[in-house]
């Protein structure tokens, strides 16, 4: 019952924060455009003066694609251009990368070489990694704004949202670094070992069904662990705001304590919200597949659809914060004294 109640209350609250959600979307768009515009210029320069322009609009040409990759062998952005841009493959691709810890390990390796060896390892440094790192900082900022907004009993203004983002940024960023460390250890010590073990453990089995099963079980287990960790870190952030915690480590432990003490409720809510995310992806995939993408206006339509999806995704992210904050406030503070809410500032 409390899951649904938190779910409903949370989304009710997000409806009052459309402006901030759109702001989060703007941040995402701007970040993406920082790399997408040079990417477009490079691609445009490569193809515009050739007859491939017309051909490629109708159909991707694998020979052209291989030539492009060979011509831009040392260009990180162009090397990240692959067939997973099509259809709903981006979601599968990124989920797979998440399950293998590709982001975490890239960022971790980058920071590792930067901090401990004072060098920027050129083979590991991709523009996308740097962008991801910066984006992590910004999402810490935005998370502070969102959670403090949902922790209050009154409607926040945009300037409050920004001010709270700034207020909690330090603590949230420390939490993000702690999360990075936890995930990094999880992937390098455990997941990589399993990944490298599966081919060895299954090399003499009679059927590929065994390795398939191993990989699927591994993927499922990693997904569950990652979602639990993500949930714990969400509650750690909520705890920082609601209970005015200063230590990120203790906030993490407190988040874990709350998560496990109220596991059914907390994880049930997390799964429900994740299910909404899946529905969003399915809806996007369904609509995108209906649009023929070989002329200008349909392409504009797809672009709009993509941005609508990202806005939806931002809304969902806000929903995660709002619903979990509501759940925490309903069940997590029973033994604590109520904290006075900060005074609202004048509406901007």
């Amino acid at each position, binding site marked *: 019952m409390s899951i649904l109640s938190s779910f409903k209350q949370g989304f009710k609250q997000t409806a009052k924060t459309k402006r901030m959600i759109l702001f989060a979307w703007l941040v995402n768009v701007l970040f993406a455009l920082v790399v997408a515009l040079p990417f477009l210029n490079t691609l445009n320069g490569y193809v515009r003066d050739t007859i491939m322009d017309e051909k490629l609009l109708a159909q991707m040409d694998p020979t052209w694609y291989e030539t492009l990759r060979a011509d831009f062998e040392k260009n990180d952005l162009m090397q990240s251009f692959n067939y997973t841009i099509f259809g709903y493959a981006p979601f*599968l691709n*990124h989920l797979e990368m998440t399950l293998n810890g590709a982001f975490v390990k890239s960022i971790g390796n980058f920071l590792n070489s930067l901090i401990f060896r004072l060098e920027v390892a050129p083979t590991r440094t991709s523009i996308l990694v740097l962008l*991801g790192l910066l*984006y992590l900082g910004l999402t810490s900022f935005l998370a502070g704004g969102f959670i403090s907004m949902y922790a209050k009993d009154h409607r926040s203004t945009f300037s409050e949202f920004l001010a709270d983002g700034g207020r909690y940024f330090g603590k949230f960023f420390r939490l993000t670094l702690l999360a990075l460390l936890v995930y990094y250890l999880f992937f390098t010590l455990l997941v990589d070992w399993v990944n490298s073990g599966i081919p060895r453990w299954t090399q*003499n089995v009679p059927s590929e069904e*065994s*390795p398939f099963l191993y990989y699927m079980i591994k993927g499922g287990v990693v997904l569950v662990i990652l979602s639990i960790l993500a949930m714990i870190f969400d509650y750690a952030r909520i705890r920082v705001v609601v209970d005015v915690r200063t230590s990120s480590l203790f906030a993490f432990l407190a988040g874990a304590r709350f998560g496990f003490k109220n596991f059914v409720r907390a994880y049930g809510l997390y799964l429900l919200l994740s299910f909404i995310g899946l529905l969003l992806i399915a809806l996007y995939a369904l609509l995108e597949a209906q649009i023929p993408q070989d002329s200008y206006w349909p*392409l504009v339509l797809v672009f709009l659809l993509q941005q609508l999806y990202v806005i939806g995704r931002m809304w969902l992210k806000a929903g995660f914060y709002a619903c979990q904050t509501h759940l925490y406030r309903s069940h997590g503070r029973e033994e604590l004294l109520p904290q006075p809410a900060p005074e609202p500032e004048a509406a901007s």
Partner: protein
Amino acid sequence: MKKILVGALEYGFIVAAAVLIVAFVGLPPTDSNTVQKAQKSSVPRLEQGTEPWDKELKLPTLSDRIVRYTMDVRLDTETNVISGWEILEWRNTTGRAQQEFPFHLYHNAWKNNRSTVAKESGWRLYRSDMRPEDYGYTNVKSVKVLDGKTETDITSTFRYIQPDDGNRDDQTVFQIRSPKPVQPGRTITFKIEFETKQPLPISRTGAIRDYHFVAQWFPKIGVWWRGAWNCHQFHQTTEFFADYGVYDVKITVPTDYVIGATGGIPRSVVNNNDTTTTYQFYQEDVHDFAWVTSPDLVATVRTFKHDKPDPDERGDRHHPLREVTVIVLTQPHHDNMIDRYFEATFKALRYYGEWYGQYPYETVTVVDPANGSRSGGMEYPTLFTGGTTRYSPPEQPSPEGVTVHEFGHQFWYGLVGNNEFEEAWLDEGFNTYSTDRVINAGWRPFKEARFFFGGPGASSYVGIPYVFHEVNEAPLGVSNIGIREMGKNDVMARKAWEYNETYGLNSYTKPALSLVMLERYLGEEMMYRIMRTYHHRYRFKHPTTQDFINTVNEVTKKDMNWFFANTWFSSNLFDYSVDRIVNQKIPEPEGIFTENGEPMDSSQFQWKGKQYVCEIVVKREGEAIAPVDVLIVFKNGEEKREEWDGEYRWKKFVYESDSPVVSAVVDPDQKLVLDINYNNNSKVIREPGYKSLAARKYASKWMFWVQNLLEFINL
């Protein structure tokens, strides 16, 4: 103040995003930027005479049958040892007396890490988990010469030889000496007792669990070829070469084991008293014998029939094909792939048969290899191995690609028996080219796909398949990028073990692409005639590269040596490009003019010439040379198609026209498939500020990919 700052931040973000999005999405393209669709050039059309062009072609029905192997062997499934004897009758067709005879003992490549195969692989046998009992070998126990009722033991003359690299530790070739020379036309009979221990599968052959794939397993005599014995050691990259003949083989295996072998349906089956069964297989006019056995194999048998033309078949090319019994032996977990194996084999039987000449044998056996057996994708007479994963989606050519390819080797390797050691491209390249033709005729387009959330399994990549419907699979399943990157390493025409890491490139990709190129230069009909003639002429023979070139020259009635000099006998690369298009508007008349002897000033002068001088410069960036077409399109839709011999480094085409040139393309029909960069083959004059819609399409997809990526990086 704070309010202003917040407002500035928020609205600043909105404005910046709006500006950048507009810059990204851009405006709709105008018609002036579209390029006229070029008409396809005509490939040479062949006159259809009153007489069929191929009335002189006769398909041989019998081989020379230089060898006859009679064998009786038994497999011990506990020790993986095959023991028994062979009687080899060898007929001397060499034109001279012979007394020394080289034999292959391929299994000794798996004996230790000092064999030439191991040496060429970095002193190892491709796998790290070899225990002492996992190595393989063939041990020749005795060799006798049978002459009527007398037997002469010549085991003492047995010695290993290393004709290729002098590696004393390599025991993959041995030689024996007969008591007296064998005169031309006479036959010598050897009886060889041997024992072959199957290795843990390393490459192509071996035993894993209770699956035994048995290939290159018996002492096999070399080939007298080009005036000498040709019996190469086993190398890391080489395949095989042997004479045609008859195989009559008895194999004893446990009764509960399913067996498949060259020859297909056993001539006799005898259940023994010791829970074993002896199968007798018999096959004429083949040059090798392989077999497979396992209790887990599932046998399905269907009949290929093709007596009347299919609706899509050209009447003048219809050749009734014989019925063939197709035996598919699958792994139990590949039950969902049985129909696909059959469909691929039937299509291959049909197209190879129609194009090159009918498949002459009664049976063909398709083996779905066991996981980890490393025996997939390999060809043997009347038997071949496929390979697939049960997760292969129908849009992906697995098992279709490998099935068609390995079946195709029945024609290129099996029926036309080139020397795979020395001229591997004559089967691998020809067959890759043919495979692509069958895939095109039977299925295309297949799609690119990827397996997510998986990884390397026992012998395949497993995961959840995702099909990229937007991307057709590359023709030939390969691109010419490999040629661009490594093509200069080697001339294609080299011995298979002498390449600098380009065996695959020069045995498969380059020759196959060369044949596609030849087809596009000569036309499909001419290529059909060449390949059919070559196959008919050299069925059951051992042709060379020069035999093929001679066939090309003869059938085309042209000297095509330039083609082979630039492709097969050169490591040069093809790369043609359009360097520039210059449309110069001829300026208004200025100065003093004379008309009919009368001077006049420029305002009175009537210029009768055209408005533009258009220059197009095309270049040869690579060192390889081939004639190419150049297609030039003018703004008014007019097209000019020029021929360029492609020899000098560049060529300029100049036109006076009332309409400027809007595009130029070198090789517009992509005949030159070996061109390593097709992206520079064209130039199009666009309006200033034109943004490619294709670029916007892919960039916006990529941007969404990045947006999504950013949201997944959420700690």
